[in-house]
């Protein structure tokens, strides 16, 4: 995957004079496509909220804000791991493998927390059709969770491309592209957390 394109690129600052597209151009088709669609999600939610202000406020109070914050911190830290891993691969630093593994574990943590959060909701009798707020809650966090799972799959593939000595066997474009997707997952959660749990 694009092995040659970035093979020479081993500096920490990938620009080093010239501008550099993280990953490959095609990844950004997906990223911007997703950004635009999630923008539509956010605006639809904000408009729907205006119709039922009280209901949204009361329902929001039922969410577990602590778990939401915990998940935010998990994803932020996971993003940090991936950013460090990309930089480490550029420096031929074998700790890149460990950092990628750490990112995966933190991402799995997010999934586990989400599982407990959903089951607590269902146990309390709050389901998809409880009211219009919870349609948004379940659907948006569910679609985001799908992104998390895809991202974990991509990171697992990236992880498998390290050999035991921690050397990366593919082009830098692969880990950069996977990293950019993982940061997208983090970034979308930041907005979802603010909209669903806080505002």
């Amino acid at each position, binding site marked *: 995957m694009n092995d040659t394109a970035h093979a020479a690129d081993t500096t920490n600052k990938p620009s080093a004079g010239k501008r550099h597209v993280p990953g490959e151009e095609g990844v950004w088709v997906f990223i911007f496509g997703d950004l635009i669609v999630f923008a539509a999600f956010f605006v639809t939610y*904000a408009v729907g909220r205006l119709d039922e202000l009280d209901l949204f406020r009361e329902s929001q109070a039922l969410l577990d804000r602590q778990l939401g914050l915990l998940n935010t911190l998990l994803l932020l830290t996971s993003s940090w791991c991936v*950013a460090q891993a990309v930089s480490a691969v550029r420096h031929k630093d074998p700790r890149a493998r460990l950092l990628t593994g750490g990112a995966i574990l933190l991402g799995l943590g997010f999934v586990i927390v989400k599982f407990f959060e959903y089951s607590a909701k269902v146990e309390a009798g709050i389901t998809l059709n409880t009211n219009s707020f919870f349609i948004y809650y379940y659907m948006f966090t569910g679609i985001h969770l799908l992104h998390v799972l895809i991202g974990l799959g991509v990171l697992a593939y990236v992880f498998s491309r390290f050999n035991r000595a921690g050397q990366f066997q593919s082009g830098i474009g692969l880990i950069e592209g996977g990293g950019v997707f993982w940061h997208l997952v983090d970034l979308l959660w930041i907005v979802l957390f*603010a909209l669903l749990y806080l505002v």
Partner: protein
Amino acid sequence: MASLVKNRFSLIWLILVVASLLSWESMAIAGDDARLGRMVILVIAFLKVRLVGIEFMELRHAPVLLRAGFEAWCIAVCAALLVLFW
């Protein structure tokens, strides 16, 4: 080997964590003015989003068009939400 702790990414991470905690408490800080609280939360959220994009996604080294597209998205979506949550 370069330190994993003392570098730019760690500083960004720290800023992001502090910002998260700040927005977490902003309803309490804003007190009775719920609207102020909402605006603060949204602005902090999009400042965080921008940081993740520019720093973690390394858009600050990317071609100007790519970066500009991302910045425009942040501004447009944040502005739309600020209006809708006013």
